[in-house]
C-alpha cells in the first residue's frame, strides 16, 4: 500500500514538473521580448561588460567597488552596458559567463581568483570575448584571458603614514582574514607607511596583526577587534576582512579607524570622519577601462597582466579624473581625505609627506615597494618551494624595482617589525 503510495506520488510530482516545464516553455514565446531601445539600433557597437561578483554587492567593499566601477563605465561611455551576477560560486562561474555571453557580453570579469581557472578554460571557446580575473597569486594568462589587480599597497602606504601619526599608545592593529599573498602584500604596504611615519616622528610603534580565519566572519571579527584594543592597547585599527564589525568596534571604542578598498564614509555612510581617519578607494574602472579600450580597438593580443597603480587613471562621466587607487574619505581625495578631526592631530611633516608621496606615485616617479628594502620578519605564509625567509633576511634591497611576478605571487612574508598574534 505504502509502495503504491510513493510510486504514484513520485509519478505525480514528475508530471507536475513536466507540466510546469511545458507551461514555461509555452509561455516563453508569449512573453514580451526584451524591448530594444530605439536609439540604440547600432547594437554591434555596444560593449557589454559582465562582472561576476563572488559575494553580495550590497554592503560589501570588494564587490561594492566592482559594482560601482561597472556603473561608472556605463555612465562614462554611451555604448557600454554593465551586467552582473552576485554571490557567484565556482560552479556558477562558467554557466553564468556563458549565459551572459550568449546575451551579448563582450568582456567577462570574475572578481575573485577562484573564477580564474574556469574562465581561463572557456576563453578559447569564445575568442571574441575578453575574460578577466583578479590576481591573488596566480599569474597564468591566455591571449584573451587577462589578469588584473590594482596596486593597492600604494594607498595603504599612505594610510600607514597617517596611522603612525595618529597613534598615541604606539599600537596599531590589523584585523586580518588569513595569511595569503594578497593579504600579506597589502599589509606590507601599510607597515612600510607606518614605519616611515614612525621614523619621521621618532615614535616607537608596534603593529599587531590578528587573523580571524576567513574573510567574512562578523562576530569573530568583532571579538578580535575588541581583543586588539583591550589587550594590546591599539588605538588605530584597520582591517583586511570584509565585514563592518571592526569599524563598528572602532566607533564604539572611540579610536581611529583606517578603511580599506572603498570610501565607506562617502559611499555607504556607515561611519563618519570622527572615526574613519583615512580610507582608500579602489577604482576597478581604470583597469576595466583599459580592457574596454583595447577591446574597442580590436586589439587581438591585449595586455594580459594589468597591475596598475596610481599612475593610471580614467575620466568619469562628471569629468573627474580617478586614479586606480587613491586615499579617499568622505568623498574627498588626497590629503583632503584625512578626516578634519584627525588632521589637527597629525604633524604637518606627515601631511606633507603623504601629499608628496602621493604626487610622486601619480607621476610614477616613486613607489614604496621600490624605495624600501624588504626585510623579512620571519613570519608569513610558506608557499610551495618558497619558505619564509629567516627573520632579518634582506630579500630585496632598497631602490630596486621588484618584479610584478614577485609582488603578485611570491611576496608572502611579513616585513620586519610587525607582530603576528596567534
Amino acid at each position, binding site marked *: 500500500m505504502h509502495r503504491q503510495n*510513493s510510486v*504514484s506520488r513520485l509519478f505525480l510530482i514528475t508530471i507536475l514538473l513536466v507540466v510546469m516545464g511545458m507551461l514555461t516553455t509555452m*509561455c516563453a514565446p508569449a512573453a514580451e521580448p526584451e524591448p530594444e531601445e530605439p536609439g540604440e539600433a547600432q547594437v554591434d557597437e555596444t560593449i557589454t561588460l559582465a562582472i561576476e561578483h563572488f559575494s553580495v554587492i550590497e554592503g560589501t567593499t570588494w564587490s561594492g567597488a566592482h559594482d560601482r566601477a561597472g556603473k561608472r563605465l556605463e555612465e562614462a561611455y554611451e555604448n557600454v552596458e554593465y551586467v552582473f551576477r552576485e*554571490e557567484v560560486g565556482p560552479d556558477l562561474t562558467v*554557466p553564468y559567463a556563458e549565459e551572459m555571453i550568449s546575451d551579448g557580453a563582450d568582456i567577462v570579469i570574475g572578481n575573485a581568483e577562484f573564477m580564474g581557472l574556469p574562465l581561463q578554460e572557456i576563453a578559447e571557446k569564445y575568442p571574441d570575448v575578453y575574460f578577466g580575473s583578479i590576481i591573488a597569486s596566480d599569474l597564468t594568462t591566455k591571449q584573451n584571458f587577462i589578469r588584473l589587480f590594482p596596486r593597492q599597497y600604494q594607498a595603504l602606504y599612505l594610510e600607514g603614514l597617517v596611522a603612525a601619526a595618529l597613534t598615541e599608545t604606539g599600537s596599531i592593529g590589523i584585523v586580518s582574514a588569513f595569511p595569503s599573498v594578497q593579504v600579506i602584500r597589502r599589509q606590507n604596504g601599510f607597515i612600510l607607511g607606518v614605519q616611515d611615519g614612525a621614523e619621521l616622528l621618532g615614535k616607537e610603534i608596534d603593529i599587531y596583526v590578528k587573523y580571524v580565519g576567513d574573510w567574512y566572519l562578523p562576530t569573530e571579527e568583532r571579538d578580535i577587534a575588541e581583543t586588539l584594543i583591550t589587550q594590546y592597547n591599539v588605538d588605530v585599527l584597520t582591517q583586511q576582512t570584509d565585514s563592518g564589525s571592526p569599524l563598528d568596534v572602532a566607533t564604539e571604542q572611540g579610536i581611529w579607524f583606517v578603511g580599506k578598498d572603498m570610501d565607506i564614509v562617502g559611499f555607504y555612510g556607515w561611519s563618519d570622519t570622527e572615526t574613519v581617519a583615512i580610507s582608500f578607494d579602489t577604482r576597478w574602472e581604470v583597469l576595466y577601462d583599459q580592457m574596454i579600450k583595447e577591446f574597442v580597438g580590436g586589439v587581438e593580443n591585449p595586455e594580459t597582466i594589468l597591475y596598475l597603480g596610481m599612475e593610471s587613471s580614467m575620466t568619469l562621466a562628471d569629468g573627474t579624473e580617478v586614479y586606480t587607487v587613491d586615499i579617499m574619505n568622505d568623498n574627498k581625495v588626497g590629503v583632503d581625505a584625512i578626516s578634519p578631526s584627525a588632521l589637527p592631530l597629525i604633524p604637518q611633516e606627515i601631511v606633507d609627506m603623504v601629499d608628496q608621496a602621493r604626487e610622486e606615485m601619480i607621476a610614477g616617479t616613486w613607489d614604496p615597494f621600490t624605495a624600501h628594502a624588504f626585510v623579512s620578519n620571519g613570519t608569513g*605564509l610558506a608557499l610551495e618551494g618558497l619558505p619564509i625567509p629567516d627573520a632579518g633576511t634582506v630579500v630585496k634591497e632598497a631602490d630596486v624595482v621588484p618584479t610584478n611576478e614577485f609582488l603578485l605571487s611570491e611576496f608572502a612574508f611579513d616585513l620586519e617589525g610587525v607582530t603576528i598574534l596567534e
Partner: protein
Amino acid sequence: MRIGRPTLKLQKRVYLSGWRAASISILAILVALLLFSLIFLLAGINPLTAYEEIFSYAFDNPFGLPITLNRFVFLLLCTCAFILPYKAGLWNIGMTGQFYIGSLAVYGVLLGLGFRGSEPVNIAPGFVILLMVAASMVSGALYGAIAGFFKGKLNTNEIVVTMMLNFIAFWLVSYMIKEGGPFMNPGGRGESFEMAASLRPPTFFNVPFTIFLALGFAFLLYFLLKRTKLGYQIRAFGLNPTAAEYAGVNHVSIPVLVFLLGGALAGLAGYHYFAAVPGVFKIARNYAFFGDLAFYGIICGLISQGNPLASIPVAFLFGGMSVGGRYVQGKLGMSFGVDFALMGVLMITLVAFQFFYRYRVVFSNPQKENPDARILD
C-alpha cells in the same frame, strides 16, 4: 463547541492514496509560490514574469539546467544521507560535516598519491577517480558513524552531536586548506590546490557521472528499505525501537549502520561538488555555502516523507529553485537572498501541508447532525 455553527471537523486519515498525497504536495508547492508572489509584488515585479524566469532558467535553459542538475545530484545525495537515519527514527543533521570530511578525503587521496595539482604518472586516472570516490564515501561514513555510535551506545542526542560535528568539520577544512595546511593552494588563497585536469571525470551535458551514482543510490536505498532484511530492521527500529529490539534488532548496530551509510552518501556529495562539477575542481573558498546547501537535504527528505524515490523529483525541484531563485534576483535586480527566501517559504508551506497527509477536513452541518440543540437549562 459544536452548537449552532457549521464546523470544520478534522478526521484522521486511515488511508492516504498516492494520488491524494501527490496532489497535496503539488497544492503545497502552488500555495508556496502564491505566497511568495507577495514578495515579488512588494518588489514591484510581476510574479508571473518572475516565475517564468525562475522555471525557464532552472529547467529549460542550456546554461541553467546543468547547474540545476549538479545541485540536484548534491541534494539527492544529501537527501538520501538524511533519509536512511530518518527511517531508523534518527535525525542526521550532520550531512554538512560529513560532506566536508568527504571533500577532505578526496584531496587527501590526491595528496597521498603526490598529485598535488600535477598530473598522475603511472596510475590510470580512472583508478585515481575510483580511489577518490571511495575515500569520500568511507570518510563521510566514518564521520557519520560517530553520531550513530554514541546514539546506540550512550543514547546521546544525535541532533546535537551531528551539529557539533558540523562545526568541527568546518574548521578542520579551514585548517587543511589555509595557512600552511596540507591542502593549501600554492598561492595560499584560502582554497585547496587544484585537481589535475586529467582527473576530471567524464561529464554528460556538463553533469558528471555522479548523477548516475546518486540516482543509483536512491533506487538502491529504496530497494534496501523496501525489500531487504536490513531495510526491514531499519524501518522497524525507526517506528518502534523497543519492539525492534525485542525482535532481535541490535540497538547499537542499526544507528551505527544508518549513519555509516548516510555519511557515505553525504561524503560522496563532497567528491561530487569539489572534484567532479565542472568549474570547481578544488575545495572552494566558499565551501560553507555548499555546507549550508546540504541542510536542504533535510527538507527534501522530509517532504518526500523518507521515500528515496519521491526524493528524486523533490531534490530536482529544490535544486532548480536554488538556481532559479538566484538567477531571477540578478536578472530582475532584486536584493540579495531571493533564492533562500523562496526555499524558506516553500519549506514552511510544506511543513504546514504535512498536516493534510494525516488529516482531512470535513464540513459538518450541525442542523442535520444535532437535531436536539441541547438547550438544557
